[in-house]
């Protein structure tokens, strides 16, 4: 019966569900939560690298939505963007608290891009799972401001305009950070691949004499 109610709500927009939950409709709240929680949880997971933190952040995000002083304004962006914005603030707060435990990030746009050694496919030769793990490590190693654009645009598939709203910056800044982030990712993946190639080079080889 509850699932039938959920199906009824699935066709409604986020704003309609928000209106209903403001009027005490629990099913609307559950429908909205189920629609948006995955992306928020994954974003928090990508950014914090911790399932426990991601769980806490997801809970806090939707609790904030329940509060009457929730500052969502549909004129300023989508509800999804608003939820990502709250999650981002919570992530940043968590990162600030744990700053002593993590290495300082090179967090500036002024870093000159280094020349990349061109490798056609930095993930070549890896299984799907190995490739994803390599990518996960590379994304985690990115400075925070590049990591968040990769997570929002590449992993959660927001367009640049929505990401700009979440990050509170111009769309051009999102585009330039994205470009820089991809370059850094390729560099990191290449660095990880070089030792592997070096080890491969030590393998015994047969020479035809």
């Amino acid at each position, binding site marked *: 019966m509850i699932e039938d109610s959920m199906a009824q709500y699935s066709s409604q927009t986020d704003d309609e569900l928000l209106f209903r*939950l403001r009027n*005490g409709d*629990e099913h609307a*709240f*559950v429908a909205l*939560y*189920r629609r948006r*929680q*995955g992306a*928020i*949880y*994954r974003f928090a*997971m990508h950014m914090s690298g911790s399932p426990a933190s*991601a*769980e806490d952040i*997801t*809970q806090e995000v*939707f*609790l904030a939505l*329940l509060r*009457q002083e929730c500052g969502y304004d549909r004129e300023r962006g989508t509800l999804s963007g608003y939820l990502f914005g709250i999650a981002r603030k919570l992530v940043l707060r968590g990162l600030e608290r744990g700053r002593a435990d993590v290495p300082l990030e090179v967090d500036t746009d002024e870093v000159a891009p280094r020349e*990349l050694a*061109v*490798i*056609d*496919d*930095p*993930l*070549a030769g890896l299984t*799907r799972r190995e*490739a*994803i793990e*390599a*990518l*996960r490590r590379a994304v985690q190693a990115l400075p925070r401001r590049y990591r968040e654009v*990769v997570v929002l*645009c*590449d*992993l959660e*598939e927001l*367009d*640049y305009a929505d990401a700009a709203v979440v990050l509170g910056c111009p769309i051009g800044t999102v*585009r330039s950070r*994205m*470009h820089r982030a*991809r370059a850094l*990712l*390729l560099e990191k*993946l290449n660095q990880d691949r070089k030792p592997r190639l070096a080890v491969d080079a030590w393998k015994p080889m047969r020479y035809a004499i």
Partner: protein
Amino acid sequence: MNCQEFWNNPPQRGDNLGEEQTAHLAECGACAAQFEPHRALAKGLQSWVEEWRQLEAPPRVEAGLTAAFRSQTGFHVRRAVRHSWWTPVIAWASAAAAMIALAALLVRGYQPASPRPGTVAAPRHISQPVVEVATLPPADADSDDDSSVLGDGFVRLPNAPRIEPNEDFNVVRVEVPGSAMIAMGVPVSEDRAAETVLADVALGSDGTARAIRLIGDGGTF
């Protein structure tokens, strides 16, 4: 599209090229080679997205939030119920209290100040101005010293204007010190000079006092 334009506007998704970008890569081998790692990166990221697409928060998060929603909704309902009872009551009570306070202030402000003890020097008005048309007999200019005594026991006040024939008078009852009555020539005994006595004052049509009479035993004390 040239090489500069291609790299200034990279595709939002690494593997989602527009027509112009695809055309440029087809004709520019250098850009195609340089773009190949980006294409591979996009492919790897897409694999990651698909792998994690089903990743969600644990069910206990939903359970906790639903409980919070229920408790919060109940809280708001209770508050709304309390509001529906108390808000109008408090508002009306406050308004009524304010009105009473304002009314009391205004009434007190318009009350005549009570005379200080021992300073009763002027006649005190003790009744509503009675418009009593008294037809006092005009004083006879040819009469002798009793000409100050008018009809109905009124005594003409010293230096008062002459009373014209058929002039209308208003009579006002007041309290005046006995000593003042003596000074006006009204017969009041000496031992009651310190007391206040009741008297009627005849006011002319111009509002000035013309005559006075004692209220008491035959007009004398």
